[in-house]
């Protein structure tokens, strides 16, 4: 079922803001994870974006616009321009589907630190649906403008929901993706308290995230935004659009077992649902961009879920988690990793699973341990996003 075409990519990431440059940096295994906030009691690292607001906003336009919305406006605009899709669409037939885990963290932190003189636009800056609203205003999207807050699966869910809207004919063009910008001291402290962040020695922040490695200790936070443009393959063909890949299937499930502990059967249900919708078999899939948060429990569960569904074909599936390089973008992770998966298909190259010095025997599978690996036969790839709250989202792409 090749009905949904990906015709535009817009990335605002710690590796840059052009898809080819971002993919090239990922392929070289360049880590964007760096130390942040040296004033905190415990060392912290994150992947942050060098973002030039003035490219997208006048100072006047920035009133009450949190960084999380700024990144989204920029990424969505890049995606629309990349698709060459604007101009000939009825605005009422454009939808925005945005994932966001937290909302405007910087606005909330500034309010708390204001000493009681709270900036008056804190609420509209902070509200989690602000990014989607700002994207809609910038792109003049008058159709459904929706926000999905499903923790680490937010933007994968958003892309799946957008695909459904395109498929059902509710919209002609969907601007779908996610954004997250919560690298502020208060939020970093909260994540440290959750004990899921990677620990590291001085000078070793860049290699601190080691998915599926025996010595893994967790992830680093990342910020950024990624959007894709989805439209029907027929519409893309009609307007002679460049198609990066087809979104062939998606699967969404919930563990319904535990708020934070992942679950093999739940993840396997999402994987099977995506394969079923795409009418594909496990053996057809050549690459998996894993959720791979490098936590002690999460990586083993994901490996076991893949093993359960792929069975004897697991060795045919190349797997990597690119979170080692761009950090965990939480609400934007699914969208960025979907874009990387699409680029992997387009370039027929496999992003590396960086920093894995010794594969954990409990995570044994066909990890992409080297950089620059070509995959000349690659036809189908998937991206996993598994959230706190138990929601699992799998996106399955087919080469154009």
């Amino acid at each position, binding site marked *: 079922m090749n009905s949904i075409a990906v015709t535009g990519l817009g990335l605002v990431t710690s590796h840059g803001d052009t898809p080819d440059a971002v993919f090239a940096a990922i392929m070289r295994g360049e880590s964007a994870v760096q130390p942040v906030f040296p004033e905190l009691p415990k060392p912290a690292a994150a992947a942050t974006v060098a973002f030039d607001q003035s490219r997208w906003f*006048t*100072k*006047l336009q920035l*009133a*009450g616009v949190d960084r999380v919305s700024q990144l989204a406006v920029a990424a969505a605009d890049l995606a629309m321009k990349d698709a060459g899709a604007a101009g000939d669409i009825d605005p009422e037939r454009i939808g925005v589907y945005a994932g966001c885990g937290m909302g405007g963290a910087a606005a909330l932190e500034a309010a708390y630190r204001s000493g009681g*003189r709270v*900036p*008056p*636009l804190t609420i*509209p800056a902070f509200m989690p649906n602000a990014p989607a609203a700002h994207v809609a205003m910038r792109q003049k999207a008058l159709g459904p403008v929706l926000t999905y807050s499903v923790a680490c699966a937010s933007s994968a869910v958003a892309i799946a929901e957008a695909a459904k809207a395109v498929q059902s004919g509710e919209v002609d063009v969907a601007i779908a993706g996610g954004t997250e910008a919560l690298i502020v001291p208060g939020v970093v402290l909260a994540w440290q308290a959750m004990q899921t962040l990677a620990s590291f020695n001085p000078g070793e922040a860049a290699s601190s995230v080691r998915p599926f490695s025996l010595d893994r200790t967790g992830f680093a936070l990342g910020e950024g935004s990624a959007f894709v443009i989805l439209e029907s393959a027929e519409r893309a063909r009609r307007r002679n659009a460049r198609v990066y890949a087809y979104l062939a299937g998606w699967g969404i499930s919930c563990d319904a077992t535990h708020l934070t502990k992942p679950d093999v059967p739940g993840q396997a249900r999402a994987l099977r649902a995506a394969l079923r919708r795409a009418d594909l078999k496990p053996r057809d899939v050549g690459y998996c961009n894993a959720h791979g948060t490098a936590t002690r429990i999460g990586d083993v569960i994901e490996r076991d879920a893949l093993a359960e569904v792929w069975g004897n074909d697991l060795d045919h599936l190349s797997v990597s988690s690119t979170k080692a390089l761009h950090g965990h973008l939480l609400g934007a992770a699914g969208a960025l990793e979907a874009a990387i998966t699409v680029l992997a298909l387009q370039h027929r190259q496999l992003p590396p699973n960086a920093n894995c010095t010794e594969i954990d025997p409990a995570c044994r599978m066909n990890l992409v341990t080297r950089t620059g690996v070509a995959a000349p036969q690659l036809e189908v790839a998937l991206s996993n996003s598994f959230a706190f709250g138990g929601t699992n989202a799998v996106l399955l792409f087919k080469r154009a």
Partner: protein
Amino acid sequence: MSSLKELQDLIHEKYGIDMSELDPSASMREKGLDSLALVEFLFAVEDHFHINLPDVDSNVDTLAELAVVVDRVRAAKAAA
């Protein structure tokens, strides 16, 4: 005492609006300061002059009108 010049400087510094466009008798709303931006600007005005503005009359639409309000509040504060 007129606060007008300082208000013009502040709006220029904060929003990058060109000095030549800062006509004191022009509508701030028409210059692009929508209701949200205006709320934020008034907050900055309070910070700058260390004053508390009363709920500004919604008829205040120009910098000149705002300067009159700010002058009044500063004068009252100085007299207190």
